[in-house]
């Protein structure tokens, strides 16, 4: 019998269950795109049939990290840039738990970039939502890895000399097996994409455009947007890596020309998740490791049986 009765519990789930009684009202600025992520995530959870007790949300540091305070579940608000390594070990330790990681563009594409690349490469079965507002918000408006070239801020007074990072293209090269972009102003698409990302068996990366009305005033509200799956102008095959790469490149370029493209960019349903790969080579137990510590009948090997080779 599982020591974790919340996992795969069959019952009706209401989206209100994900609103914490302690901090029901977020303190993000009025008009902040982060509200859109919270709303979409709450809407997606009942759709995928997961309860607060069987969900672990890991966040980084920044306005996005506050998601943990406003979303009822098990939570781990980690340190700047490190939500992914915490999250992926949690998934390996107990694959039955739904693991979602979230953070901002500075958190995920800047300070945590190394973890982003490697978590995507390894294709851990989890969802990663990046709140991309093209700015450092909580520290009051510095240029971020996704800020457009020429972006002026207190720390880049003459405007940034750097080309912005291309998050979708990076994700594809690194190995993510589900890649989408959505925007806070597009709540229904956002909820659908997050639900798909959660249900995807592998590393699902959602670049979520979240406008910052306080520190990125000259930036767009990400409207009007185009859903590339709904538009007659675009027709790429989301299972085709090459076509996806071209579509991503165009999307990333157009963002700074004022055209907002969103939707699904790449889906690879065939690639095994990291957990599956690791089990296939015998380096991960079939039963969730976390269960064993609650199982009174579990066998615990001892190293006395290894000593022979040292004699």
């Amino acid at each position: 019998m599982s020591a974790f009765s919340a996992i795969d519990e069959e019952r009706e789930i209401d989206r209100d269950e994900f609103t914490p009684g302690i901090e029901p009202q977020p303190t993000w600025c009025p008009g902040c795109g982060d509200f859109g992520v919270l709303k979409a995530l709450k809407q997606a959870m009942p759709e995928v049939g997961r309860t607060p007790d069987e969900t672990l949300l890991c966040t980084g540091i920044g306005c996005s990290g506050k998601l943990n305070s406003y979303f009822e579940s098990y939570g781990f608000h980690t340190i700047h840039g490190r939500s992914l390594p915490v999250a992926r070990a949690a998934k390996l330790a107990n694959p039955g738990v739904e693991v979602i990681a979230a953070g901002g563009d500075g958190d995920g594409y800047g300070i945590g970039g190394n973890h982003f690349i490697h978590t995507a490469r390894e294709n851990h079965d989890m969802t990663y939502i990046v709140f991309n507002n093209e700015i450092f918000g909580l520290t009051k408006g510095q240029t971020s890895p996704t800020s457009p070239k020429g972006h002026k801020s207190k720390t880049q007074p003459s405007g940034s000399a750097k080309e912005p990072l291309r998050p979708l293209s990076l994700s594809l090269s690194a190995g993510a097996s589900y890649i989408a972009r959505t925007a806070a102003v597009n709540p229904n698409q956002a909820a659908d994409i997050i639900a798909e990302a959660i249900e995807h068996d592998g590393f699902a990366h959602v670049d979520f455009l979240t406008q910052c009305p306080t520190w990125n005033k000259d930036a767009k509200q990400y409207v009007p947007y185009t859903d590339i799956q709904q538009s007659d102008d675009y027709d790429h095959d989301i299972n085709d890596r090459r076509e996806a790469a071209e579509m991503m490149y165009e999307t990333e370029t157009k963002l700074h020309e004022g055209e907002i493209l969103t939707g699904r960019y790449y889906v690879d349903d065939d690639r095994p998740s990291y957990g599956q790969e690791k089990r296939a080579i015998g380096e991960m137990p079939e039963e969730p490791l976390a269960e064993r510590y609650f199982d009174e009948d579990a066998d615990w090997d001892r190293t006395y049986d290894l000593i022979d080779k040292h004699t």
Partner: protein
Amino acid sequence: MAEKDLIWRIAGGSGDGIDSTSQNFAKALMRSGLNVFTHRHYPSRIRGGHTYVEVRAGNGPVGSRGDGYNFLLTLGDSFARNPGEDAYYGDEEVKPLTENLDELNEGGIIVYDEGLLDEEDVAETDLEQRAEENDWHLYPVDLRGIAREYGRDVMRNTAGVGVTAALLDIDVSYFEELISASMSGDIKEANLNVLEDAYEQAQEFEHTHDWSAPEGDGHDEEQALLSGSDTISYGALDEGCRFISGYPMTPWTDVFTIMSQNLPKFGGISEQVEDEIAAAALALGASHMGVKSMSGSSGGGFALMSEPLGLAEMTETPIVLVEAMRAGPSTGLPTKPEQGDLEHILYTSQGDSSRVVFAPANVRECYTQTRQAFKIAYEYQIPTIVAYDQKLQGELRNVPVSFFDEEPNSDPGAVLTEEEIQEAAHHASGKFNRFQHDPEDGSNVSPRSVPGQKDGRFLATGNEHNESGHIDEDPENRVIQMERRVGKLADIREELDGLDTTHQTYKGPEDADYGIITWGSQQGTVFEAVDRLNDAGHSVKAIGVSDLMPYPEEDVTEFLESVDEALVVEMNATAQFRGLTQKELGRFGEKMSSLLKYNGNPFEPDEIVEGFETSIDDGELPHQRMKYVPAAGD
């Protein structure tokens, strides 16, 4: 002279099989009934460069490297075998012979490979003259020739072992057994032939030396040969650790490798990850789910773990980290031991530190203290660090097999079951109070739930937080949570002081006038020096400290009060442990002097004797290998 310890040094190039040959040599002598101890010295290169291992063997307890050594088997250098490198590495071939001579004791034996070393090259050195001055006995043998006759050049090491056995009257069958068990097919046959031929040839030599290896008195029970890295790993496995994450770095790599090879068999998971920040963060992630987890690194990699370490303190997530020290700062001496990371380990990461640090002194303590580290970490929800160094990492020692006949412990510590969660305190909103202000039974430990358990939801955060984990900057809450987290250290000290066996180890007569204090891996060497000093008429005792945080105030105070003066022996340049002791005890500055060594080599027993005599005379050390720092006011 048959009863002196054999200290056999095998020297050659990295890649010449120095490590594996010395391990087999040590094991053979262990099986012959002797106690053994090995000391490794190697450069930070893949191939080439000068490397040696010493095997000390005797019937007494051998808990340290010896003073100098008495048998040199030098193979020459493999890097110099590459003819294309002749111009640059012209005299490398002969260096494993010439560079080892300074520490060879009078009456010592030298076996060198005259097949590899040019006669003229040897003639150009001052070997003959020094041999005469020091009564060394030279045995040039064509080791390469013997190896080539039956197999490949690299089997020169086996030929050298055969010659050693013949010259020192060691029963060659122990080596035959080990070769038979560890090799197979043609390689095995070739090595056995090389061994036999070399042994027979050397028996025919005219033996100019008059001593042989000590004959083993035998062991009361079966022995095993293990390193500190082996026993740290085994301690972790026996304590139910089933998750490790790491990134390679010398000398930490040893533990990471041993764990990675064994964890799949034990039903656990090992993860090699992108950097040490990730390594520590993964271990936290697994521990958060209820799995007993560890990570670790050496100095530079451990520096990267600072922030996750602080997160573990703040979120009260149990974790065990290993810090395998090497000489710093920065990349330092990557393959040489030092105890310079003490303050780094104690204080790295922002804010007041609340962590536990043990520094085991030997192969046995590595096992018991690693087990204790897991118990403390999981019972008290606190990061616990096992600090050792490149010395203890690589040295092999024999331990009775029965020492490891222990039951495993899978207890995950202060974790609630779902039934217990139902009974436990919750916030009115339904969130579980995982960080209670005043946990039951007056303890500072607030038991945790783990994700997936029904009604156990809480938030773990690096921000200051309230009872259910939500971010909270209320001053009153802040003080309560801080006091509870930091207060665990006093509780742990009390538990450790109440154990049947303390982690501190003592040597010498209780009523001695003088004291020597050391910590971690230098203990064995210090204890040997204490015996010599007492034999020489001094009145000295020693304490080897393993508990670094929480500091063993009672044990060290009692020791310091009982002596007139104390010498603190440690491998670093700024007397870090002496500083810690003064800080923790707030006195004794005028009683403690320091003997420091930081040249990349661990202490030898006679160096400590010399340092002690300097300290009581307030004199000066006769050489630059060590530094003596007098007590305050002296």
